């Protein structure tokens, strides 16, 4: 029954009133904590994620250290109150481990790791509220936190989900409700400027014919996300600059 539910109504609006190619509202803030080297908070619709970055600092475990690059340690966790049902989410369960690995993969692609040999960067993300598109929100938050930490990155890594509504219309940034009702969801993490895809994940089997349009939609979404993050970083930089007066000191 739920399979037949229309995700996009006759008038071309989705259940929450968006058009198929619209992202949810993104709000973000950098530098939310003072303790870590970098931190950020992002809201994508109702999905809320905190990210904190520590480092680069000396590696903790000797085995993992690399002589030519820093290692990136990521840890994903979900708050007990993040979903409808309150349940214990022990760290290190299969899902969080997988998420952590995916996140690490995305960050490795942009961080200039060879600048920090023998060292380590820790990225912690915590989902405060989950409403679909958890992974993209985590990636986007981590990107902001890394920038806040002043760690050199090649460019932004942004992520976005896309799915297929009514079996024909690709739609962007699916919410939890749409994830449940709809079919397969494609998650893409990409470098929007160079157009590279870092990670792609499909929640279910999916016909190949649909892939190009859904993928293109997801990449467009990544670009849109990037534009929003750009704006946020710019504001943050100029705010910090004007607050410390530092930006004006050098002629």
């Amino acid at each position, binding site marked *: 029954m739920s399979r037949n539910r229309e995700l996009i109504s006759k008038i071309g609006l989705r259940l929450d009133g968006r058009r198929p190619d619209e992202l949810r509202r993104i709000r973000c803030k950098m*530098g939310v904590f003072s303790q870590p*080297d*970098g931190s950020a908070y992002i809201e994508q619709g109702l999905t809320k994620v905190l990210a904190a970055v*520590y*480092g*680069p*600092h*000396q*590696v903790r475990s*000797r085995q993992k*250290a690399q*002589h030519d690059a820093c290692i990136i340690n990521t840890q994903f966790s979900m708050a007990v109150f993040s979903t409808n049902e309150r349940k214990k989410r022990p760290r290190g369960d299969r899902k969080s481990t997988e998420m952590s690995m995916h996140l690490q993969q995305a960050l490795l692609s942009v961080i*200039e790791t060879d*600048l*920090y*040999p*023998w*060292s380590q960067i820790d990225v912690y993300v915590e989902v405060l509220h989950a409403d679909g598109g958890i992974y993209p929100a985590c990636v986007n938050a981590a990107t902001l936190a890394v*920038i*806040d*930490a*002043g*760690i*050199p*990155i*090649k*460019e*932004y890594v942004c992520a976005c989900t896309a799915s297929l509504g009514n079996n024909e219309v690709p739609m962007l940034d699916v919410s939890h409700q749409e994830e449940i009702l709809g079919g397969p969801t494609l998650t893409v993490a990409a*470098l929007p*400027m160079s157009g590279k895809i870092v990670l792609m994940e499909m929640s279910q089997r999916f016909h190949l014919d649909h892939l190009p349009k859904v993928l293109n939609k997801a990449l467009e979404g990544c670009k849109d996300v990037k534009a929003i993050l*750009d704006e946020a*970083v*710019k504001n*943050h*930089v*100029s705010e*910090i*600059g004007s607050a*410390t007066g*530092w*930006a*004006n000191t*050098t*002629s």
Partner: protein
Amino acid sequence: MENPICLPGQRLSICDNVYTCGQGTYQRQGYIYSMLAGTVDLVDRNGVKVIEVHSTGEQTVISTQGDIVTAQVYIITQQFAKCYIKCIGSTVLRSPYRGLIRRENIRATEKDKTEVFKSLRPGDIVLARVLPMTEAHSYQLSTAENELGVVIAHSEHGYPMVPVSWTEMQCPKTLVKEPRKVAKIIPENIDTGGIVVDS
């Protein structure tokens, strides 16, 4: 003129004979891109314009071979002294790195006769140079230069001592002399203001 703000991944300039990559930038396909969110600086070095990007927040630096670091000794053994690296150059680290000063790296001369406890004591603040990296978990440091060695030390009674020779420091209260590998300090060079001494 206010320096322009740039964002990570932003293309700053073409990379050619005139412009070249500096700190916080990288080169890709003939262009210079920013790696940080911060302000762009144009530094003229020997006629080549180096583009640098400086982050607004605290710098994260990693000590590399040859850097002068400020460290605090916390354990000594017969063979080595362990210390926390607190500053690299003039940059204060947010979190200390662990460093290791081996007995043979304390002094430049008479390496065999050097005894660790006669050169360094826990709590001492030393200036040291980073040696080439060999193992992961700690940095190898050396004080085997005239300018390197203990700069601040406290006597057994807890009073800051003053250097009296290359090898000794004296407590101004009790006048007890203690052996140290003392750094030759030109006072203007010590920037103690940046050093956090947690005694």
